């Protein structure tokens, strides 16, 4: 059996290849702007060919970290290595990186072809090599016909793709992208996400990507680096961060969550404020008072009378029901009034599950993540 050639898009690999060379390493990086701490003791490692996304709320230091890697700002302390060579204070032009700026930063006085040729000219490539490489790069982003135009004559999405072509044409081994799709509409964004992902697979380039759109991060990344208040909150694959967040913030930022305070003796069994008993993996539990995080999509409705099927369950009363396409969201309260949410597949949700009805909600104890309790 032969594989068709256009099947080359493989699903993102969710594990890092530990045998691959370390491409980028950041250690103890700190950067302040006057009294503002923009980055604080940040450590990060990326392997060759990895797609890592910096995700975090506005002002969390994503751009600052990216700019430090690009050599566009001067860190206060800490070190940066690229390809095993220290580059903390090396000027940007000596780093062999490509960068896509948030608003593209295309040179308005140069034509599209000249924009793409610029990095090659800076590398003193011969005229014929430049011509061929530019043509090739423009083909890759499917814009071979706009070479003679000027940036102002392109649409936002086209400019974005040119910025991409310009950052890749000289085959840098690392490409940094600062919210490259931030200014585009949803449809174009979805399309370009796939294009960038394809290019990444095809060229095997290492990409450090910034976004504050969690869905974008989940779709594109091998690993996600979650940032908050100038620090790294958690690094891991999309799956790890979604299934095993380590803090309230991580649980909240990536998707919806139920977070319930529990009393526990530390042996993997806890008691909710309603008195119901729940289980969790004791190996994951931090020291101190605990909360339990359960994703709404891990929750099921159990038939009254049937057994618990080995799941942990709570009694809940449905307050409201919202159909959001494929998913139906149930907002319920537990017996002591605590709010609890369950997301069910619309197609398999009985019409009788309506506001006012009491149900038993259950989840597998694997899906329950113990977190250090934070006063909300």
């Amino acid at each position, binding site marked *: 059996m032969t594989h068709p050639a256009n099947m080359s898009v493989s699903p993102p690999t969710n594990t890092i290849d530990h045998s691959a060379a370390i491409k980028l390493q950041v250690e103890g990086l700190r950067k302040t702007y006057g009294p503002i701490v923009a980055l604080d003791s940040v450590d990060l490692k990326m392997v060759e060919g990895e797609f890592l996304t910096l995700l975090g709320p506005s002002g969390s230091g994503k751009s600052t970290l990216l700019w430090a890697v690009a050599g566009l700002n001067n860190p206060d302390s800490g070190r940066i290595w690229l390809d095993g060579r220290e580059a903390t204070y090396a000027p940007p032009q000596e780093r062999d990186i490509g960068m896509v700026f948030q608003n593209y930063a295309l*040179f308005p006085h140069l034509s599209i072809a000249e924009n793409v040729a610029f990095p090659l000219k800076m590398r003193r490539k011969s005229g014929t090599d430049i011509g061929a490489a530019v043509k090739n790069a423009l083909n890759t982003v499917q814009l071979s016909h706009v070479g003679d135009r000027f940036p102002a004559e392109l649409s936002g999405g086209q400019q974005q793709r040119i910025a991409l072509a310009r950052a890749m044409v000289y085959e840098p081994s690392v490409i940094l992208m600062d919210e490259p799709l931030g200014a585009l509409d949803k449809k174009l964004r979805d399309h370009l996400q796939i294009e960038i992902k394809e290019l990444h697979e095809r060229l095997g380039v290492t990409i450090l990507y910034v976004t504050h759109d969690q869905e974008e991060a989940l779709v594109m990344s091998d690993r996600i680096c979650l940032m908050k208040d100038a620090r790294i909150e958690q690094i891991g694959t999309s799956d790890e961060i979604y299934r095993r967040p380590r803090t309230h913030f991580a649980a909240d930022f990536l998707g919806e969550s139920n977070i319930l305070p529990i009393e526990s003796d530390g042996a993997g069994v806890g008691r909710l404020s309603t008195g119901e008993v729940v289980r969790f993996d004791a190996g994951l539990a931090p020291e101190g008072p605990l909360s339990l995080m359960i994703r709404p999509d891990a929750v099921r409705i159990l038939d009254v009378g049937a057994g618990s099927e080995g799941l942990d369950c709570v009694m809940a009363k449905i307050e409201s029901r919202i159909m959001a396409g494929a998913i139906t969201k149930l907002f319920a309260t537990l017996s002591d009034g605590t709010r609890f949410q369950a997301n069910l597949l619309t197609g398999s949700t009985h019409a009788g599950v309506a506001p006012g009805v009491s149900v038993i909600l259950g989840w597998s104890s694997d899906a329950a993540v113990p977190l250090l309790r934070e006063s909300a």
Partner: protein
Amino acid sequence: MEQFFSRLRGPWLSAPAALYISLVFAVPVLWLLGLSLVDNGAPSLANYERLASTPLYMRLLGITLKIAALTTLFAVIGAYPVALMLSQVRKRRNLLLLLVLLPFWTSFLVRAFAWMVLLGRRGAINQTLEGAGLIEQPLTLMYNTTGVLVGMSHAMLPLAVMTMLPVMLAVDRRLTLAAATLGARPGSAFWLIWFPLTMPGVAAAGMLVFVTSLGFFITPALLGSERDTVIVQEIIFQIQQQLNWGFAGAIGVLVLLTVLAILSAYNAVFGLSTLGGGIGKAPQKGPVGRMASRIGTGFLTILARMTDAALSLVPQRLSERGVSHPLAATSALILAFLAVPTLFIVPVAFTEASFLSWPPRGFSLQWFDAVTTDPRWIEAVGRSLLVAILSAGIGLLLGVPAAFAIARARFAAKPAVFALLMAPVIVPNIFIAVGLFYLFSRMGLVGTTLGLSLGHAVLAIPYVLVTVIAVVRSYDERLDLAAYTLGASRAETLRRITLPLIRPGLISAFMFAFIVSFDELTIALFLTGGETITLPKKMWDDAILQVSPELAAASTLLFLFMTGFVIVAEFIRQRAAKRGA
């Protein structure tokens, strides 16, 4: 009906100003130029035949063009680093800007006198060099082309800085950073990205300085020799000494054609629209523009490589955005060149001697006494203040509505109206002066305060127009709409919302117009007479005889007044701006 009025309303707001400029400026000037085509009451080209056949006039034009070109070169080269530095600093920009603005607002006459104190045979520079034993004979620094160029570059530098700065501020700073990530070394990033992007500012500055220099005769007359006579002086000579209006008109046509040729060349390459500051979005693609840009790119690439090679000798280390040391040092030198000379006029005013000397002899206040008790000085100051206030008032009255029309209304004649209203600052002042003289002498207005005020208002209108247009453009019109929805009438909205918010702009406009009038000499040369004399005219008359300590004292007082005025006005403007924000 309502719609009919609102449709008329916008464009018609510019009518009073347009009418005023037409009647008081355009018609007399055109009439005057028309005189050149008449000889003894019959149409004739005799004036032009004489102009073409006498080598003197072509030589004068040559001298004028040479002085203007060299002035432009020096002013633009000097202004570039200063504007670059100003565009890079953040916190101290307003303070540093004041160092450029102060010389800008200091009287041309005062600045010319200051250079006379510095450059004369027994001036500060020669005395210092001789005292240090570096020279035996005094150098000839003045009454020659060197003196003229020093004075002219000094006079034009602030204009060049102020023209370039908005363009530099509009360039996206990340573009040079992007260039660096793409592998450009600092030299390449500067010459291939930053410099071309700021080119419209350089060109606009060059054009404005050149055109202004063409009509400038004060500095050449005071600092130059016979051989530095510029063509405008010949127009004055023909009118005041020869009473030959027709021939003066012919020379005027020659000067105007030169200005027009420069303007159209500029328009072909850069487009006149870039003059308003801000960079053109897509580059001009006319054939001339393309050629120029191709040659330019080659040249810039060479510059970039040379700079990079030179820089590679010094070890490269990442440096945060900010002003580099060489740039800071260069701009400090240029700012010193701008600010320091004027200060030399202060000590010589305190001399005990009855002639200018360096270093000043002893200490005495006699010359200040002389100025402040002499009724002629007091009369001149009073007249100047009155004329400045009146003409700035007329300028606001006519200019502000016109600015609203230009900024907000859409009408076919808008470019023509705008060009008409701006013409008084593009055309050399001498034309306004001569045209007004021609008109007012018929109406008995020469030598009157009213005549002077009406004349200065011609100059005030374009300054008010430009300042207020900028403010109105940046004004969020939805605020007016919001006021309407809240029940305010048009008049109430204007009074309670619009005017308070644009007040800082109106203050700037008034200040602009006031200073332009207070400092104006060319029009005053023609429109004053007998008893009615303005301060610059009085200073000029004295300077023609001798630059005396008394003149230095008057200049010092004027300098102090202007500095105080600019600082107070700027303070009021900033306070109004803060309240508006």
